[in-house]
């Protein structure tokens, strides 16, 4: 009875969650800024204008200009775009490879599950960022290699989350019922288990997205990620570090942008977890006591 109301209200209730609201609005604003930069930026960032370099904020350049005279706002917008794209693709790699691995490990069990778990442990044993540095160092620094390096370390995260979620689902009677209806392990994993762990995966994705943005910034900062003339938030930090004492705004602005994006994504992730995970919901008291 109360469960019906609960489901209908889930979006309304989620919206009432303060950190989710702040996180979602913030993330969407930054994502929109990044997307707009594909079509339009206030100034063209491929045009250098040395005579205009190191300008402070003004009505034409809202956030000033950098050491080549490029508009900082435009730079930040397209830098954020690169960061988002790298992180998004990296998360997708983890989601698309890790989730099936975890699901199938849980539903098949046996040697396959053992292999997946040991593979996970192997990847987890190395600090992700160090390994990413090794990968990009071997295959050459580029945005694509950064994506692959970050993506590989998302695979075990999603495999583990989806296997854990699947194990708690698999003991339900409806899985046995599906088995009696002739569904095989593969079918059960995707038709029955996946829809039930979707919320877990959504929450994990938002957390991994923010980690991906940090990782991209880290890789670009040490020169192994995005290469000029393309730009990214980490690359902007790197390029401005030698000028930090003279023109601190050039480093502070991309730094603040990274902080804000990561913070908003984490807030949204926390809020989603609260809204989607029934174990953390407080209003379950009636069901348990009644």
């Amino acid at each position, binding site marked *: *009875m*109360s*469960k*019906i109301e609960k*489901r209908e209200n889930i979006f309304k209730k989620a919206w009432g969650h303060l950190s989710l609201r702040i996180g979602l609005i913030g993330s969407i604003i930054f994502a929109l800024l990044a997307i707009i930069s594909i079509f339009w930026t206030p100034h063209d960032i491929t045009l250098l204008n040395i005579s205009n370099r190191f300008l402070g904020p003004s009505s034409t350049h809202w956030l000033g200009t950098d050491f080549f005279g490029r508009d900082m706002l435009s730079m930040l917008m397209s830098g954020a775009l690169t960061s988002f794209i790298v992180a998004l693709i990296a998360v997708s790699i983890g989601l698309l490879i890790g989730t099936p691995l975890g699901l199938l490990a849980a539903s098949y069990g046996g040697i396959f599950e053992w292999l997946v778990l040991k593979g996970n442990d192997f990847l987890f044993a190395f600090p992700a960022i160090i390994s990413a540095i090794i990968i990009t160092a071997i295959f050459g620094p580029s945005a694509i290699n950064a994506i692959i390096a970050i993506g590989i370390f998302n695979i075990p995260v999603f495999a583990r989350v989806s296997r854990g979620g699947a194990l708690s689902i698999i003991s*339900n*009677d*409806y899985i*046995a*019922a*599906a*088995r*009696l*209806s*002739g*569904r095989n392990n593969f079918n059960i994993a995707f038709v*029955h288990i996946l*829809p*039930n762990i979707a919320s877990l995966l959504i929450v994990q994705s938002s957390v991994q997205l923010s980690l991906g943005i940090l990782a991209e910034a880290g890789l670009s900062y040490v020169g192994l990620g995005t290469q000029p003339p393309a730009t990214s938030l980490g690359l902007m930090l790197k390029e401005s570090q030698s000028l930090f004492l003279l023109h601190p705004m050039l480093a502070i602005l991309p730094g603040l942008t990274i902080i804000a994006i990561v913070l908003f994504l984490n807030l949204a992730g926390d809020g989603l977890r609260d809204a989607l995970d029934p174990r953390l919901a*407080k*209003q379950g*008291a*009636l069901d348990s*006591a*009644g």
Partner: protein
Amino acid sequence: MLVEVKNLFISFGARPAVDGISFSIKAGERFGLIGESGSGKSLSALAICGLLPENAKQAGEILFNNMPLPKSEKQMANLRGNNIGMIFQEPMSALNPLMKAKAQIAESLKIHFSKNQILRRTQKLLKEVGLEIYHGERFPHQLSGGQRQRVMIAIALAAEPKLLICDEPTSALDLITQKTILNLLDEICNHRQMALLFISHDLGAVASLCENVGVLKSGKLVERSTSKEIFKNPKHDYTKILVNASKVIVPPLRELSTHTDLFVAENITKIFKQNSLFFLAKQQPVIAVDNVSFSIKTSQAVALVGPSGCGKSTLARMIVGLDKPSSGVFSLLNKTYGKKKYLERHLQREVSLVFQDPYNSFNPRHTIGISLSEPLRLNHSLTLEKKQKAVFEAVKSVGLSKDVLNRYPHQFSGGQRQRLAIARAIVSKPALIVLDEPVSALDVSIRGEVLDLLNHLRSQLGISYLLISHDLDMVQMVADKIMVMNEGKIVEMASPKEIFNNPKHQLTKDLLAARL
């Protein structure tokens, strides 16, 4: 008056969960509260202890010993510690898994007594609840369900309370253990002159223990009377349903149309190997099912009865093909199986399973229509139209309309869900349905209609049933033949009449004696 509840309201948000109930319990009186899940009976008990969840709003008055319940948490804790003992439904989760039983009893004595006294009193309490001293040395997982509940009772009795509140204390136990726990409570209340508030959905359990009974329905106290009066002369409609549900109506034995065996189990044995730890000695394998043979005729309903852990569910899982026997074969419609884990499609169509818990047997993310049509995958030759027709027919024959198909499982009540589970079991038109405790998760008032439905479907469709249960009364209403199982073996097999009038095995006699 020991406890007086006056016009108690409890609500979560807008909907009241307890809607203005009043009752009182004298010192030494035993009062039973009956109601189905969600009727507010547990909340009323929690309110007396001052243990309502934080987000609950409470109005009305509760007097204990003619004094209103104290506002401060400290005084309330004092009152609880000295005057009220409470026993919960699930003894495993109410006990600390890392503490020995005696330590948990001693813990509740600490406030009142010195060290020397605690030891003596712990032993005395263990004895009073029918346990030996060595049981006190065990951890909760080393005790059986009944023994755990005895430990819980000992803890509740430690402070010599004036009122003992029991919230469904026996519904997680099997029938024989339930009877012994009820007898124990009876004895202790007599001996200590203690008042008892007994909460249950089971009219029989309440009536056997309490002199006065209150019936709760959707948060309202609809009837209050002595238990004799309630049985003899129920006034409210809901009480009538409850009383009728507790009566056993045995349908006349039906003539079987054929005498050929539809299903045969031959020398079925299932052995579970226990994993041994690396250095420790190998553990003995557990024989869950031990050389069991029986047969089911077309359109016959056979019941398999036994206490929990006797291997009946393991047998059911093997029959439907979720597991394979260690040795022995089954045959259904003259085709043998049991060598491999899953059945071939054409054979799997002929046998289906209805699960115990209707809340757990549907995928919450799938519509009922998707779930119900799933077994039809076993028949590739069916066209989409034929599949649709089969689903419509199945839903219709369990008494629901076809617009339920677009809804999700959470939109149905427990009884409706069990109907839908039965619909799923018959949709592929099987010859045999295995029903694993089909009504034990349902409220008493709707058990009767599900059993009626089963009888109706059998006479209409000619399906055979294998009915698995621990409840002889329920089984009697459906089955033509009863098999009693104990420790993996079938110890008695006879018609219901024979079992009830002339039980041979000791377990059968115990099961019969445990009926309330």
